[in-house]
């Protein structure tokens, strides 16, 4: 049996009358890139926000690295959060800080006693690995959307997470930049040995980055498996329409 780093069982979440998640079961296995697909508003962001407890579920359980997230004290929760990198949909860079300060902020606040040299080395190394060494003294407002996303990924990597959660890493980017980001996601897995959930509705991104797909429809995962299993052999019309839209009706 493969080792699960995230185990989601029977997850429900509603906002008022809006039933977003209705019984979600999902496992993330160690070392894999799992792609979560679903149309806009299907609750993909809500799902990963529940994982890091930015939102709390109405029902169901989430186990991360063997710990049930509902029973953690704030201190334990924060310890767990440091092992999870969360790349936000819109990057969420701190706009009052430079790129360098953005990267340093989580580092210096969570790890005491680092020397200036160690901090600089880490920051510069990460900016190099996301391919943006020259932005170090820029403000987020001066960066393009794709650059922001890459800096956002660099910022989450600075604490060496074991799990990465990418929320629509390629949304709103041109095809070449998308490929750069997809490569970055794969490179992160190689370099940092992470297990990742990649949320997207872009099938190219899914195909390039994912070992396994899971399609979220009407609050549940309707299909999971490899890209071929899920899409090319799809019978469910809702899954099929996803594929058709991306690859045929351009």
């Amino acid at each position, binding site marked *: 049996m493969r080792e699960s780093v995230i185990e989601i069982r029977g997850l429900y979440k509603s906002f008022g009358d809006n039933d977003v998640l209705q019984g979600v079961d999902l496992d993330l296995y160690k070392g894999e890139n799992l792609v979560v697909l679903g149309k806009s508003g299907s609750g993909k962001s809500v799902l990963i*926000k529940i994982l*890091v407890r*930015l939102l709390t579920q109405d029902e169901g359980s989430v186990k991360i690295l063997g710990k049930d997230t509902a029973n953690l004290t704030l201190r334990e929760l*924060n*310890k767990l*959060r*440091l092992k*999870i990198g*969360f790349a*936000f*949909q*819109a990057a*969420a*860079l*701190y*706009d*009052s800080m430079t790129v360098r300060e953005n990267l340093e*902020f*989580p580092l210096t*606040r*969570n790890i005491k006693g680092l020397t200036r040299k160690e901090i600089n080395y880490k920051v510069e190394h990460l900016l190099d690995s996301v391919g943006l060494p020259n932005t170090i003294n820029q403000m987020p407002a001066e960066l393009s959307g794709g650059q922001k996303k890459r800096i956002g990924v660099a910022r*989450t990597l600075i*604490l060496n997470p074991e799990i990465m959660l990418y929320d629509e890493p390629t949304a709103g980017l041109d095809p070449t930049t998308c490929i750069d980001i997809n490569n970055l996601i794969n490179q992160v897995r190689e370099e940092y040995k992470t297990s990742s959930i990649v949320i997207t509705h872009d099938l190219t991104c899914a195909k390039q980055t994912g070992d396994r797909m899971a399609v979220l429809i009407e609050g549940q995962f309707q299909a999971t498996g490899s890209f071929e299993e899920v899409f090319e052999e799809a019978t469910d019309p809702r899954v099929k329409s996803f594929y058709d839209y991306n690859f045929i009706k351009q």
Partner: protein
Amino acid sequence: MEDKKPVISKKIDNFFRGLSDAYAFVKRFFVEVWFPPYEFKEILRQCYEIGYRSLPLISLTGFIIGIVFTNQSRPSLAEFGATSWLPALISIAVVRALGPLVTALIAAGKVGSSIGAEIGSMKVTEQIDAMEVSAINPFKYLVITRTLATTFMIPVLVMYTDFVALLGSFINVNQNEMVSLSTFFVQVFESISFLDIFSSVIKSLVFGFTIGIVGCYKGYRSNQGTEGVGKAANASVVMSMFLIFIEELLALQVVNAIRNA
């Protein structure tokens, strides 16, 4: 009539929900403010921002109020041949009421709105969530620092406004009654008591706290979307001005009670 009922009760319901939410927010401030990390650097930076942002407007307003108020009070006093009381009258009005009130209202407009907008935009662009997931307490880093900064800085600004207003008043008095600077300020200090200064400082601390916590609260609770940011900025000005007037009235009652005791 019948279908109106849920609307009314929903409004009332929302009002009390808002009230308890605001109470929880303020309570969280008083619980968390005692524990490290204290973020001294961020508090200092905020103090500087607050002073820097409001100083020009406060200087101008304070100065003009001093001149205008003196000028307008002169005829009434002149009727009784009592223009020599001008410095005493002005200093009491400025120290007891005008200085704190004017400073707080200006700061609510300049500082409160920018805190509301800044935190509101951090909220809607998920920067606050980003802090949370990297195990940084955003309440400490954003709310406590800003609220402490306004709480400390408003009293400082009030003293400055008092001084500038009295200076304006002095210029007017000097021109008309030929009173020297030293005579003017001797009269000023003779007429204001320890209670006046003390209550002014306490009141200013409360005003400062109000401006900071309201701005942070409105920002923190702003809804999704950029529209929410503008609303948060606006709501924080309206709310803090309203509370400042209420607090001024309450302070007046309390100080009068002490004075008469």
